[in-house]
């Protein structure tokens, strides 16, 4: 069964550093998403991406965040200058053009020290 993959599984970085989280969505999917989940809290939507542009973003997704689809398979989330409060699990998801469900990856645990 096709699945969304994410790398790395765990990333530790120092405050102020840039991080790039990588995702490979399911190959025939056209919509891509990033969510995050701070430990013990709800899963929160960050951004959705379609046709090489952001289609929707939340208040969390400020100027420190950016997304990119650098090639035909990867979808990345960049945090320019990490803060302690960026520590969370980051989930990538994808869905097809007519699909009703989003498929989530296993997540990247980001720890900012």
């Amino acid at each position: 069964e096709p699945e969304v993959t994410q790398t790395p599984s765990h990333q530790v970085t120092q405050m102020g550093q840039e991080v790039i989280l990588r995702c490979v969505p399911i190959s025939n999917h056209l919509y891509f998403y990033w969510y995050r989940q701070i430990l013990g809290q709800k899963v929160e939507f960050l951004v959705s991406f379609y046709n090489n542009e952001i289609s929707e973003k939340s208040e969390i997704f400020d100027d420190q965040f950016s997304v990119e689809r650098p090639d035909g398979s990867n979808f990345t989330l960049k945090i320019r200058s990490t803060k302690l409060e960026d520590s969370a699990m980051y989930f990538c998801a994808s869905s097809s053009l007519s699909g009703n469900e989003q498929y989530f990856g296993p997540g990247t645990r980001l720890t900012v020290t």
Partner: protein
Amino acid sequence: LAKTTQPISMDSYEGQEVNITCSHNNIATNDYITWYQQFPSQGPRFIIQGYKTKVTNEVASLFIPADRKSSTLSLPRVSLSDTAVYYCLVGELPGNAGNMLTFGGGTRLMVKP
């Protein structure tokens, strides 16, 4: 977005049927009801989706009364591996141009031997 209310936690025993009810009094005409499951340290996983009446798949059943102000996820004969957080989501289909998912707190189901 329609607000959802579901129990914070539930306990059950192996082999029992579990019913988790979600209230969504302000559901809109275009809204669907979707349930996701999340195991610890994993991304959410789609379980089932419906608009009205009853939907059944190989994993669960979803019961939606005529007024659609609530819904009940039914898990037949649960096992220890069904221990997870179950989220009720109400909104337009993700297939409609990549709509974001809005997660609430979910119901933490603990299945005991």
